[in-house]
């Protein structure tokens, strides 16, 4: 009874914050609403006992996306948002309502019995050497999806870099918060970053057997890097450095190489030889963690705006 009341309260809050975020006219307020919405969704996933999804939503949905949106909105010049003509607004509303109705129909009118591979996953999980079925699905059964996800993150970074002004190409993004040299931010960075790195590595490591994993852990590592850059403890790297580019590409390259090696060794793309499944998955996870952390950090840092060779 109490559980149901809590679920209804969370559902009502999610819908309320979503409506408020869409309705508000101010960029900053809408982004704050979006972050709050992400945190409420985290609670909803946690209530559904989907802790892996909850962790991802908190780290990426609420955290990193919120920061990227904030930095983007600061860069955008304020534009007078003219209200679209009434016809266009009605059309958009109808399309959104149609998508919502279709999704609601899928959820509310499920096939009986619902198609599920959960039991199959449980039975064969031991052969991957992993204890967390989510990690098993991500790294073994649906490895192709995971591989493409990591490539998409890299492509997003290319998109951000393509906004670089000509003069700054090969330079580095300016990240330090003005007057960061004074006040609590550098102290906070110095004390928090070592702790945060340990927690990030722990979340990656524990992901094999419990909720956690490379995306969540990499986000924490990226956050520590971003904090160091914002506090002025370190500078963002020049995007032309080949070592940086190698780091960014290492995850997808290792994943692809092991995937291709699976064709002769295990009979299919992205299949692992059974004896080597656990070490190979671990190798991919480590490479992906480093690449995703670097990519997320640079996504937040944004396009370079410091001309190479010219120090401000």
């Amino acid at each position, binding site marked *: 009874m109490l559980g149901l009341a809590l679920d209804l309260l969370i559902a009502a809050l999610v819908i309320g914050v979503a409506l408020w975020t869409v309705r508000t006219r101010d960029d900053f307020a809408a982004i704050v609403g979006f972050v709050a919405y992400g945190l409420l969704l985290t609670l909803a996933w946690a209530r559904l006992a989907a802790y892996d999804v909850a962790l991802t939503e908190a780290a990426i949905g609420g955290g990193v996306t919120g920061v990227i949106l904030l930095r983007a909105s600061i860069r955008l010049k304020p534009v007078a948002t003219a209200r679209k003509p009434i016809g266009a607004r009605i059309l958009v509303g109808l399309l959104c309502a149609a998508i919502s109705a279709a999704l609601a129909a899928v959820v509310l009118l499920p096939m009986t019995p619902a198609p599920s591979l959960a039991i199959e996953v449980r039975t064969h999980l031991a052969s991957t050497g992993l204890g967390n079925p989510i990690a098993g699905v991500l790294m073994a059964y649906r490895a192709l999806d995971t591989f493409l996800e990591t490539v998409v993150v890299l492509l997003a970074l290319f998109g951000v870099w393509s906004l670089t002004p000509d003069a700054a190409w090969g330079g580095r993004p300016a990240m330090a918060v003005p007057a960061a040299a004074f*006040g609590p*931010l550098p*102290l*906070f960075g110095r004390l*928090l970053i070592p702790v945060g790195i340990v927690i990030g590595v722990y979340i990656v490591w524990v992901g094999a057997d419990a909720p956690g994993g490379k995306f969540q852990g990499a986000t924490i590592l990226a956050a520590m890097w971003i904090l160091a850059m914002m506090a002025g403890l370190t500078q963002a790297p020049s995007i032309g450095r080949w070592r940086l580019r190698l780091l960014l590409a290492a995850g997808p390259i290792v994943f692809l190489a092991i995937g291709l090696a699976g064709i002769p060794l295990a009979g299919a793309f992205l299949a692992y030889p059974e004896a080597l499944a656990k070490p190979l998955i671990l190798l991919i996870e480590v490479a992906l963690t480093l690449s995703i952390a670097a990519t997320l950090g640079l996504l937040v840092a944004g396009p370079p705006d410091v001309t190479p060779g010219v120090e401000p």
Partner: protein
Amino acid sequence: MTALVALFSTAAIGAGIIFFLAGTVGLIRFPDGLTRLHALTKADNLGLGLIVIGLLPLSSSVGMALKLVVIWALVQFAGATVAQLIARVARSTERGE
């Protein structure tokens, strides 16, 4: 013994919730940024601290209890830093800089 532990946990978590409630009321009702910040930080450190103290006897292992304490310490640390940063911005805008 179990009843005593349950009583202690309920009392501590209840007191924590009161601090969160008071902090929220302050956030909505107080007149300016600095006083609102003052109300919020009380919810962060005292409210969450009391809830963690209430949860400690209920945790399944020493490791779990330690994690709860670490979470409280991290929130405390982040909250104090962010409060300082926001207060600096609030004061400089007040002075019209």
